């Protein structure tokens, strides 16, 4: 058969049931991405005879003799299509995984479709941006600034990978052809709890193309946690690479290695597994009740760090300052409410997976979709008894993370398969596997009790939290502790109490997710603050102003933390409240709404420590190249967080150069050094600090070296415009490099950061909503967000992080929900039934930054990736309460959930 792809003819015959997407990738067109493989996300969009289609739904044979255009062939060779240029000018991407499909779709819209982007773009999901930047691209806006040498920090410079992203040339995890690859497919448990008695591989091994079956007998007999933290003691050791007990539907049972995915799938279907069914429990309250089946009965606190295994309690925390019970009795006003949050998923468009091989030097290479290459290397070395220098873990560009890739879900199997087979292996999760077998946010039930005196001063704050970690305890404890931290630490209150428990259940595990527990508890705490304000007749702003911590106030949440390294490196919460209050007073465009729409305002605030506790380490190394440019090596990964832009800005600023002179190498353990990882918003605050130190060290070295050449005092030298200037003499960096080379000297420097001390960042979100009392529909009339990110390294990117965080959180507030049935099965493991916000669902958010400069963060900057997510559900819940007088206590706020209470209060029309 003959195919015309990007003007080139290919003679190749697809498999009968093959879709166009995989066929195009097989022929090397890696710009065609897989987000869902089911027609829902649009990442695989290509043009067929000039018309956009989702190539995952097109039978490959039908494209024969039609003109196929992928992103790689969209512009003439070496050129840039106007829509690609528009996406560059507007910087309408973050991770960039959706970008090829988005560009091809946007470019094909007619004028009518451009008038209704909500409908036209409903087949293109972007999980990162919140769509404002994409709308900017369609409207031809330019969001980019440039910067002179030494002035990059604080400017809206574009992402260095932009040109590759818009051309489909940026290489993501699976965008690599490997000869002789074996594909891994996983047989997964159909039972929520069972012991594997026997696995009969006979029929599987007879399938042509199947090479090997791996079961628990092949896996190291060691326990670990898929959660990756700098300190392993933060998570329980409760997981095996392959276990002989399965504890949730979807857990790995056996891996089949074959020449093709088809053969591996067939091999999985032919495995005969004998299970001994064990009693299961899927509800967390039932799981910790007496008589519940124990999910990890053999684990102990001392050895495995499981607090109370017989009761299915992974971790718990209890503490009190003052006397909450009597404070509540004496309070002028008080409130008690129980709030529940649901199970939501990161839904990064690139699924988990990777490629692994053992190279000629005997080094195990793992190319993975990860936020934590260094910690994954550490885990693999320990699991497989390999020296650290015999394991390399790396990533190029990662298609979204959001915390979901602060885990080792696939690299362990990849390593096992590569080591056992001696062949290169690939493991790419399907979207369904992503839902049923990776991780989610921890669903929580939070009871809050709060009291205040007549003056609106808080006198009591109490949290009672039950978190559900699913079948494994990855991140169970740290998320719980974080959830009970800053949400009440941000308020001055003499009496505080926390009782919090995280339970095992026979369900898909929960793990790290943007905000790390805080969104769940803030939903409850910020509601309680509003309820007190209402009783006191205070505005939501005023009650917060009277109670928030200010510099010098202790940030307390019981029990007392063992960490004492959090300081007010800067403080902008007061400004954030002012900014949101002012912006909310601006009415905005008038909308005609019938009397059935009820309108209300709501706000919520959040504080977040700028680094996770107990150490977060980053090394950076920078060297002068012969041409006078720089090579900067950092460990932190890029998955849309924008840190690769910021690191170059920091280095260029410290070294009086421009960012295009700084070549960045990143996220590869082979480069040496260490980096705890791109999580906890540490990419700028911690790793950026290391880069700043390295660059400043190099700057000093330049001055010393140049002063020797020019015969001047080092402290009289300055760096300016790609040169060292000592008095009236000037030596360009290229000349400096030349001089160093003649002396046999390398000009290079290192820097590191230990992630301590830590600062605090703040956010305030405001919404004006309209709620239809007859249908339960919600319209967001206004969305305002103020962020205290210190000195903002890149305003455009930081705004994008805020907008993206708000949008992702709105998904969880309004729509998203993984439903697990009574038998422990996820019933909606696809985007069609798990509604991610599309263009039509996301309002434009006005973003404001507080004017602060942090004394701890790099060049005055603070973290700002996670926290914009945190106050969104709470602010929306408060706006709903203001509009309706009803306190809705469960998310998502879907019309069918709101309607019964609306009906009860307002009656039926």
């Amino acid at each position, binding site marked *: 058969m003959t195919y015309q792809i990007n003007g080139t003819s290919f003679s190749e015959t697809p*498999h*009968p*049931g*093959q*879709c166009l*997407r*995989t066929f195009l990738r097989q022929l090397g067109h890696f710009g065609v991405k897989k987000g869902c*493989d*089911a*027609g*829902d996300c*649009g990442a695989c*969009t290509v043009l067929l005879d000039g*018309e*956009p*289609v*989702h190539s*995952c*739904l*097109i*039978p490959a044979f*039908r494209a024969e003799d039609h003109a196929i255009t992928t992103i790689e062939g969209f512009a003439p060779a070496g050129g840039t299509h106007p829509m690609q240029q528009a996406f560059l000018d507007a910087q309408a991407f973050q991770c960039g995984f959706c970008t090829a499909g988005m560009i091809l*779709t946007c470019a094909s819209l007619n004028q009518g479709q451009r008038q209704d982007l*909500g*409908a*036209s*773009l*409903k*087949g293109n999901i972007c999980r990162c941006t919140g769509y404002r930047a994409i709308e900017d691209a369609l409207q031809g806006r330019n969001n980019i600034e440039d910067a002179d040498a030494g002035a990059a920090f604080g400017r809206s410079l574009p992402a260095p990978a932009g040109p590759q992203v818009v051309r489909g040339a940026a290489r993501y995890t699976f965008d690599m052809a490997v000869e002789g690859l074996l594909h891994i497919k996983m047989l997964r448990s159909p039972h929520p709890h069972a012991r594997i008695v026997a696995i009969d591989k006979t029929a599987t091994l007879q399938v042509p193309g199947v090479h090997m079956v791996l079961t628990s007998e092949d896996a190291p007999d060691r326990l670990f946690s898929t959660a990756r933290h700098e300190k392993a003691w933060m998570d329980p050791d409760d997981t095996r690479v392959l276990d002989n007990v399965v504890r949730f539907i979807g857990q790995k049972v056996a891996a089949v290695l074959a020449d*093709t*995915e*088809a053969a591996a*799938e*067939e091999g999985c*279907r032919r495995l005969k597994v004998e299970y001994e069914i064990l009693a299961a429990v899927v509800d967390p309250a039932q799981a910790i009740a007496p008589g519940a089946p124990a999910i990890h009965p053999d684990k102990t606190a001392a050895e495995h760090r499981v607090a109370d295994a017989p009761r299915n309690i992974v971790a718990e925390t209890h503490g009190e300052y003052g006397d909450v019970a009597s404070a509540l009795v004496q309070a002028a006003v008080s409130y008690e409410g129980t709030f529940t949050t649901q199970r939501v998923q990161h839904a990064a468009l690139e699924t988990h997976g990777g490629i692994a091989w053992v190279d000629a030097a005997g080094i195990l290479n793992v190319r993975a979709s990860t936020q934590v290459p260094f910690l994954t290397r550490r885990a693999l070395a320990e699991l497989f008894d390999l020296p650290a220098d015999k394991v390399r873990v790396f990533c190029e560009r990662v298609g979204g993370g959001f915390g979901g890739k602060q885990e080792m879900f696939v690299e362990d199997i990849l390593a096992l398969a590569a080591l056992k087979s001696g062949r290169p292996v690939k493991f790419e999760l*399907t979207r369904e596997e992503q839902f049923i077998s990776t991780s989610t946010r921890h669903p929580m039930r939070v009871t809050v009790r709060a009291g205040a005196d007549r003056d609106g001063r808080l006198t009591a704050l109490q949290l009672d939290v039950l978190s559900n970690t699913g079948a494994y305890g990855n991140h169970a404890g740290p998320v719980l502790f974080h959830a009970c931290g800053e949400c009440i630490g941000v308020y001055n209150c003499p009496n505080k109490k926390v009782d919090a428990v995280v339970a095992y259940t026979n369900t898909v595990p929960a793990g790290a997710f943007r905000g790390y527990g805080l969104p769940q508890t803030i939903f409850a705490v910020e509601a309680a603050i509003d309820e007190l304000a209402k009783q006191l007749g205070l505005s939501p702003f005023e009650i917060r102003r009277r109670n928030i911590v200010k510099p010098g106030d202790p940030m307390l949440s019981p029990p007392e933390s063992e960490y004492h390294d959090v300081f007010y490196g800067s403080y902008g919460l007061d400004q954030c409240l002012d900014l949101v209050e002012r912006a909310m007073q601006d009415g905005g465009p008038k909308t005609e709404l019938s009397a059935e729409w009820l309108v209300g305002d709501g706000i919520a605030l959040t504080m977040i420590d700028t680094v996770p506790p107990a150490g977060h380490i980053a090394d950076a190394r920078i060297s002068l190249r012969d041409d006078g440019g720089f090579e900067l090596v950092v460990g932190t990964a890029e998955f849309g967080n924008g840190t690769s832009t910021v690191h170059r800005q920091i280095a260029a600023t410290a070294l009086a150069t421009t960012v295009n002179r700084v070549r960045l190498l990143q996220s590869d353990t082979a480069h040496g050094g260490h980096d705890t990882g791109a999580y906890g918003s540490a990419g700028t605050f911690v790793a950026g600090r290391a880069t700043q130190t390295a660059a400043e060290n190099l700057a000093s070295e330049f001055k010393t070296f140049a002063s020797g050449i020019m015969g001047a005092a080092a402290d009289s030298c300055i760096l300016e415009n790609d040169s060292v200037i000592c008095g009236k003499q000037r030596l360009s960096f290229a000349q400096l490099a030349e001089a160093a080379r003649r002396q046999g000297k390398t000009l290079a420097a290192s820097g590191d950061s230990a992630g301590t001390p830590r600062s605090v960042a703040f956010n305030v979100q405001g919404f004006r909503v309209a709620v239809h009392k*007859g*249908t*339960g*529909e919600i319209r967001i009339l206004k969305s305002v967000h103020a962020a205290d990110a210190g000195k903002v390294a890149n305003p455009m990117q930081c705004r994008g992080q805020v907008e993206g965080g708000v949008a992702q959180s709105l998904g969880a507030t*309004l*729509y998203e*929900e993984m439903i697990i049935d009574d038998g422990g099965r996820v*019933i*909606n493991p*696809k985007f*069609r*039934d*798990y*509604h991610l916000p*599309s263009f*039509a*669902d996301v309002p434009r958010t006005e973003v404001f930054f507080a004017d602060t400069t942090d004394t701890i963060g790099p060049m005055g900057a603070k973290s700002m990736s996670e926290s914009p997510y945190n106050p969104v559900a709470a602010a929306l819940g408060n706006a709903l309460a203001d509009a309706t007088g009803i306190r809705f206590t469960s998310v998502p706020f879907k*019309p*069918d*959930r709101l*309607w*019964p209470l609306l009906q009860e209060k307002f009656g*039926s*029309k």
Partner: protein
Amino acid sequence: MDLNTIREVSHPQSRAQLPVWTAGDAWLAGGTWLFSEPQVHLTRLIDLTDLKWPALTIGEAGLTIAATCTVAQLDALGCPPEWLAAPLINSCCRAFLASFKIWKTATVGGNLCMSLPAGPMISLTSALDGVCTIWKAGGGEQTVRVADFVTASQRNVLEPGDLLRQIDIPLAALKRRSAFRQISLTPVGRSAALLIGSISSEGSFALTVTASTARPVQFSFAGIPQADELREAILHRIPDTLYHTDIHGKPAWRKHMTLRLADEIRAELQGPARP
């Protein structure tokens, strides 16, 4: 996604060439659903493309829509001005959860055969009194009203090997003045209730309830009913158990939305026609 168990695709060019239906076969029209989910029970696809059925035929009796007519083809149909119901076509195409990019491939027949409550082509063709022609597996043809074709969520009257050939829309239905209402849990999401009402030039009123119910439910009145009369009829004809339940809407809400939208339609059609 790849359907790795498929070993063969057959391309019949006429009814005579249709292969003998065997377990593991599936008709391939647009393929937009088939290729969107694992189909490990399938081994052969029978591609309907080469049957080359004319997508849309306007005749004296009305409109004939081939099962293989794509949603985009239907959406682009230039309708005669006397077809007062024509706006329903565009409204129903827009009611698809799927993107316009899918409309070019997805077919009207495929949407009927999927028989999801929210299938907007079911809403459209049932409201327009469409009649399905089915090529029976054993030979011969069968006709059945669209409203009776779908029997429950993802259930219909087709037996193994039966093939939906076309949907005929009578001219009279196309000439009725219509009103359309749809609601979803999200702004451009899957329909949780989709109701279509119409009045004939003689004044008779018809209402078709879809998406909220497991199968289409139709009501007809000699004239525009009173609000209570319509409400009572809906409450009487649609038992609570017939309201569909899934992630896209709880049944109690769907029921209320059905009553609400029905009343809106009644009110709209009672008023003057919009220019």
